[in-house]
């Protein structure tokens, strides 16, 4: 295998149903329902997906949801802010664990 990631692989996502069709059907039905317009618009959901794609560092998802965000009418300012939101949460999640570190250190220290 030349590369772990190939941009053409995304088009073959449905292949995951070949040996587990029922599970794949349930997943893709659920996936479709999640992204349909509801209390949140499709545009807003795509922005959330784009942010999460960066958090989970999935190149397929970043590719798909960059395009989806543009096609749903978002602009680069909104998309960049969405990535900063998830970056803040990721960074914040590390930093807030410092409280735990400090509690333990304080208990152990004289």
């Amino acid at each position, binding site marked *: 295998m030349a590369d772990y990631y190939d941009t053409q692989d995304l088009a073959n996502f449905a292949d995951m149903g070949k040996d587990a069709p029922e599970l794949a059907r349930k997943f893709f039905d659920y996936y479709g329902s999640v992204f349909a*317009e509801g209390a949140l618009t*499709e*545009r807003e959901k795509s922005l959330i997906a784009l942010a999460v794609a960066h958090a989970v560092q999935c190149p397929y998802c970043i590719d798909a949801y960059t395009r989806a965000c*543009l*096609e*749903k*009418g978002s*602009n680069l*300012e909104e998309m960049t802010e969405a990535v900063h939101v998830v970056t803040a949460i990721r960074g914040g999640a590390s930093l807030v664990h410092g409280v735990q570190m400090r509690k333990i250190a304080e208990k152990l220290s004289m």
Partner: protein
Amino acid sequence: MAMSPQPAPFHKTLAAHGLQLRKGAAHTLQVNTGLRCNLACRHCHLEAGPARTEIMSRQTMEAVASLARRIPFQSVDVTGGAPEMVPDIEFLLWELSPLAPGRLFRTNLLALEDNPGLIDTLAERSWSLVASLPAVNESQVASQRGGGVFSGSIRMLSRLNAAGFGMGGPRKLHLVSNPTGAFMPPAQASAEKFFRRELTGRRAINFDSLFVFANMPLGRFRSWLESSGNYQEYLNCLRERFNPDVVAGLMCRDIVSVGWDGRLYDCDFNQAAGLPSQGAAHVSDLAAVSEGMEIATGDHCYACTAGSGFT
């Protein structure tokens, strides 16, 4: 990396679905008044711009009006370039005004700024305005249409509202949005909701409706697609979204499209593609639209049949 397959030619896709694209009754007379424009938008299928000199002469305008007297069109649709920059444009509008109940004037908004008298004419003669506004933020509008266009567009939209356009009365103001790159447009209903939130909610600008259309892989947009390495993928994207259900309602079926020099086409995009109508060659020669006549097509037609279509 595997290469994407070449898309099937449009006429073969039509045939594969058992479809034919033929002329119906002529409802709309579309008049392209020329390629001169104050802007040089990067998606323009006609490559209109300030350096272009092709504009409709008064003699051709008289031939257009004569056609509108011979054939009872339901609507006339005046476009460009920037029709505001055509010296005899008011003559054409006055001639066409009594000849069709529906009257559309397409504007890039900025060209109207230098022509306040034209706004009065359009208002007095009840022309509906179709104004280009690709997005509701500065950066995307600038990337497609140039710096300063967004603020100028917002200024003009406010002036048009003050003149009664887009305020719910007979002076209609419709907006048109094309994507600002090699991607598909959003669903029209959700895009309109978003535009209303941003324009009406935040800027007190009113409009009647929003149309969203895919960009045509022709002219300046095609050049950009090719130079940016997006052409094949964009065409594949359009082809994958081919919707056979929209073919019967495509605008080319009921439109007579006149070029700046009086030549006849089946649509404005075929003007850009250099595909003339298979009927009469010139507006002066057209006695009646031949229903059932085959419409000239090219691969750019995929942009009109993608998703919900371009009707």
